[in-house]
């Protein structure tokens, strides 16, 4: 199949609230499992991923550049009020909180860090629940602080699928442990099960 045949035959990506949001939160020790997962990501034009991974402020490394996404997925660091479109991987930009708005776009905020983190996973996940987004799922990986625990809990309370990395599988277990101390997610997973989980949750 030629490239243009593929793009002509592929269904157009969904936009705004029709998109299924797959939120991934993580900190120290989460980047490699996430990168491996994304390398083989099957294309789903109805799904957008949002990555909220802590990193050093003023870090010169752009996660968007470091990820090798299979065509035609696109990774971007969104500007404020970027319309959510399927087939995209949105990466929370450094030193901003990233929030989902019920009107179907992403917005940014520079309010105080939460758990010393900006972007904060809690802020992002809480906004998904507040926006009563129709379809979403949350995943929390390795990390050295407790950001994300509350956000994941709020996502579960709001009826979304949640999955937390097994602490013994995480490079740094603090973040998954904090979440598991707060609530029991739908699934616990090892990093090599991320794809299986993703496909399973899509069929829910």
């Amino acid at each position, binding site marked *: 199949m030629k490239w243009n045949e593929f793009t002509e035959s592929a269904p157009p990506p969904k936009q705004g609230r029709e998109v299924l949001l797959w939120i991934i939160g993580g900190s120290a020790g989460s980047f490699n499992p996430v990168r491996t997962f994304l390398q083989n990501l099957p294309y789903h034009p109805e799904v957008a991923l949002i990555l909220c991974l802590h990193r050093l402020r003023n870090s010169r490394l752009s996660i968007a550049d470091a990820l090798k996404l299979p065509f035609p997925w696109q990774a971007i660091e969104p500007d*404020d009020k970027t319309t959510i479109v399927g087939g995209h991987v949105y990466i929370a930009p450094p030193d901003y909180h990233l*929030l989902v*708005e019920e009107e179907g776009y992403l917005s940014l905020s520079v309010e105080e860090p939460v758990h010393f983190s900006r972007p904060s996973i809690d*802020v992002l996940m809480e906004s998904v629940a507040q926006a009563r987004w129709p379809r979403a799922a949350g995943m929390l990986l390795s990390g050295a602080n407790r950001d994300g625990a509350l956000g994941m809990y*709020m996502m579960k309370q709001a009826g979304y699928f949640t999955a937390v990395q097994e602490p013994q599988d995480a490079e740094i277990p603090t973040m998954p442990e904090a979440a598991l101390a707060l609530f029991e997610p739908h699934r616990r997973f090892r990093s090599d099960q991320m794809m299986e989980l993703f496909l399973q949750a899509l069929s829910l």
Partner: protein
Amino acid sequence: MFPEVLPEISDSDLEHFFQIMLSQYGMDFRGYATSSLKRRLGTVIKRYGLTGMAVLNQRLVTNPDYIDYFINEITVSTTELFRDPSAWIALRSQGLPLVQHRPQLRIWHVGASTGEEVLSMAILLKETGLYEKAEIFATDIDRRSLEQARRAVYPLRVYKGYEQNFIQVFPHLSLEKYAHVEVNQVFFDPSLLDRVRFLQHNIVTEGTFGEFEVILCRNLLIYFTPALQNQVVTRLVDSLTEGGLLMIGTKESLFWCESARRLSPVNEVERIYRKRSSP
């Protein structure tokens, strides 16, 4: 319910809040982006130990003395000296040269917060020899932040970060030229504010008050819906002289703003624009 969970705010409570702010205080929050506004309101409710949004609304109705504190709590005052150094470098090397020949430089900082951006501009103008012909207006909705801006005194913990930013913009200078540390505070040279006027002003409801060669409005538009962004940017572009500069936050976008057609980019990455000449 866990103590950290922010309270749920219903649509009707939010609608009531909009009405109170509008009728009692003349402030219009209807165009604010919902998720961050709800988050800020939730934080205030929690901090004051209130049981919910209805109680906060009641307090706003019965206790007008509380309004300055409330505005200070819900507005985001995050700012830094030379925040995003590369944007300031671009302003110096690509932006200011386009307007520096003018007889006067009227500069407006919209959402000046605690004043670090104004100090950055004053330092930049001093270093480029333009300060004497500048007239700087710094406005914000938040009276308490403006009070701090007028004092130009900051807690010591910010110094290191400010110094790092400063050195990126002025590698051959030391911040000590403009600021000194005493006990646990940082004092900026008061002469930086000689040509600065601080005014409480609400860009959403009050419109503009003059013509400017340079307008900075950084990380304020992010709290507005696209419709309000469009209104505010139109107001800002109207307030620019031909060829005047507009600088917004580096992650802000003019995508939703019709009036962006009246601008051309000076540096798209750093979000510095110039008002086109009228045909």
